[in-house]
């Protein structure tokens, strides 16, 4: 009986399995964006870019409900116009208008 009890206790002691606590966290990753999507085509922005390239000074007003969204949208608009040859002159954050935020982008030909 003592022998069986001893074997049982030894068995219990040797049967603990240690799982690294951070294993799941380490292997559960966030998104890896390997390629950003191209901005959607916009006829009005294409026309705006053409006007800047033709020498016209242009201001684009971007509005969004929050500053974060306005910044993100302005970034997309700027990337779109720059890609089509309209260099950014300046980026101005305007005063908050109503519940939203307006952001002004200035463009002019080089």
């Amino acid at each position, binding site marked *: 009986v003592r022998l069986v009890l001893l074997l049982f206790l030894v*068995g*219990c002691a040797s*049967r*603990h*399995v240690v*799982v690294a606590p951070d*294993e*799941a966290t380490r*292997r*559960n*990753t*966030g*998104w*890896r*964006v*390997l*390629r*950003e*999507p*191209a*901005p*959607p085509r916009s006829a009005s922005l294409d026309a705006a870019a053409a006007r800047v390239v033709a020498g016209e000074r242009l201001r684009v007003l971007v509005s969004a409900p929050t500053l974060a969204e306005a910044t993100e949208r302005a970034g997309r608009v700027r990337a779109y116009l720059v890609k089509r040859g309209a260099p950014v002159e300046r980026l101005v954050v305007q005063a908050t208008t109503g519940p939203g935020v307006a952001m002004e982008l200035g463009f002019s030909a080089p």
Partner: protein
Amino acid sequence: VVRFVLALALLLPACAFSNTSVTLPETAPSGRVKARSPQTVAVRPIVDRRTQARCGMKKNGYDWDTASAFCTTDPATWVTHLVSRELTGAGYTLAADGKADVTVAGELVQLFIEPMIGMTVDIEADVHLRLTVTSRRGLHAERDVYLKMSMDAGMALFDSDFDDAAKRLADLLGADVIVSLVTLLDRYPSL
């Protein structure tokens, strides 16, 4: 009494020598999140990249691998359906591959349920799903979803514990996958 106890002691561990089956549940969408910019999504069949065909194993009291647990349905197909259900539950419209704004593909790297033997028995379930999201406008994003679930099975392990573990793992996986996909797709409202 002594004979009965001896017989019981011999018979109970014998349960661990017979294979069992695991039912992968067709869970309802978790409903954790709704898409702000619902788009059409195609879900390609998830590819099975698991290194072993079984879905889990049984162990005896000395932590030896003594029997296997086999899924009653193909795990990769099951994950494909789970992802599709979660997407529709979040407001996306499923479309055929090639006609959707976004395509979700993936590889099932691991799906395994096993008991962890100690003073009591815990049952642990792991799933490792590699997701790939592409869009017509060129988005290409990848993510490794790795989830580990552990539950207390009490003093002894029953075959039904494998089903319970699969159910909990399915709930975890569904919620994690849809929160993750909505977070990514809402970042790019026009894909």
